[in-house]
């Protein structure tokens, strides 16, 4: 269960938002709305523990995330604007490395299966440098296929994806919620997620 109370974010000297709070239980999705520059990304990074809030507190399973540290991070999967992939490595190498970095066991077959699911069949061993923007995004999203961790924080997961890919990702999220996972995501297009309760949080006026 993820709970945020009275969160405040200051960027330089501008206060982006203040007094933001919400509660998210298992199987629920929080859809973060707000104009560009309203601080959506900053809020997501705060939930990950990357950016310390100017005020307020974030609790995971009732404990402040600063105290949990590694325990909280072990249950967190964050997908930011960047694809977090290395251009010189192949999709397969990227997927295996990112899994091992986060301490998960991922064997090659499962990885290949994930890449196939996201439509990268045949390009597993091509350096990512030669892939299109959409394909690179798919490499980043391939992590979600077999992702077991409880809390997903996704920043604009649907950007640079065609309609088929958007449905696919919505499917991953739906499956995740059904497994009792939690998800927080920002998106511009309203996307219906198959299962789970959707909560809305609007930032900025």
């Amino acid at each position: 269960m993820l709970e945020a109370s009275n969160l405040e974010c200051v960027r330089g000297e501008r206060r982006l938002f203040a007094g933001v709070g919400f509660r998210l239980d298992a199987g629920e999705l929080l859809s973060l709305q707000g104009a560009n520059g309203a601080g959506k990304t900053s809020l997501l990074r705060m939930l990950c523990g990357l950016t310390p809030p100017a005020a307020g507190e974030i609790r995971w399973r009732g404990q402040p995330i600063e105290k949990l540290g590694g325990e909280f991070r072990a249950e967190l999967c964050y997908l930011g604007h960047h694809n977090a992939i290395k251009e010189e490595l192949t999709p397969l190498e990227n997927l295996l490395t990112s899994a091992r970095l986060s301490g998960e066991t991922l064997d090659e077959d499962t990885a290949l299966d994930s890449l196939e699911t996201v439509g990268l069949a045949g390009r597993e061993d091509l350096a990512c440098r030669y892939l299109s923007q959409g394909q690179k995004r798919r490499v980043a999203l391939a992590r979600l296929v077999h992702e077991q961790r409880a809390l997903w924080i996704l920043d604009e997961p649907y950007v640079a994806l065609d309609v088929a890919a958007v449905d696919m990702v919505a499917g991953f999220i739906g499956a995740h919620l059904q497994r009792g996972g939690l998800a927080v995501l920002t998106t511009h297009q309203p996307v219906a997620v198959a299962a789970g309760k959707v909560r809305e949080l609007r930032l900025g006026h």
Partner: protein
Amino acid sequence: MIALLKTVVARDLRLAMRRQADIVSALFFFIIVVSLFPLGVGPEAELLRRLASGVLWVAALLATMLSLPRLFADDFRDGTLEQMALCPQPLAVAVFGKTLAHWLSSGLPLTLLAPLIGLQFDLPADAVLTLVIGLAIGTPALSAIGAIGAALTLGLRGGGVLLSLLVLPLYIPVLIFGAGAVEATISGLGAEANLSILAALSLGGLFFAPWATAAALRIALE
């Protein structure tokens, strides 16, 4: 913990192998800088022999400095650094891995190349041996301390110059004992004392620096 280390080191080495230009350019920089001195100071063997250890060590310092800015810059830009900061183990472990990988792709090649370059300075055999041992022991400290500077100046304009301004003063003890070791061998005093202190500096650096680097990275990622 060890698995994470292996992953980070393997990943960085694979990346380094795929972008060999960076390693090779740092090595050639080392060769060129060392070769400049005889041209500047004159070819007398006696003088060069006295200068050799200082010149080689200063060149090693500068060559390591060259490859430091890229230690975190690429990962910072493509978002992989964020993912490393979000892995369950402390960030310092991943930083230690990257420091090790940086040493393997910069400090170690320098050390292996030094005897070859040492020939230009007509160093006696035992001095060359001490030089190589000293570089092998000392260069990890250069990578570890340099990583702190790379993390502090991450994403700043003019980061490279600022990096050397921050890090070079901290390199001075390593320079003194590294070059001093060769001096001690040439003058017959024996270099055990210098080399053991150099080893202490490297171990201290490899153990403590990653924590400072991790803290600096977390600040840069805010």
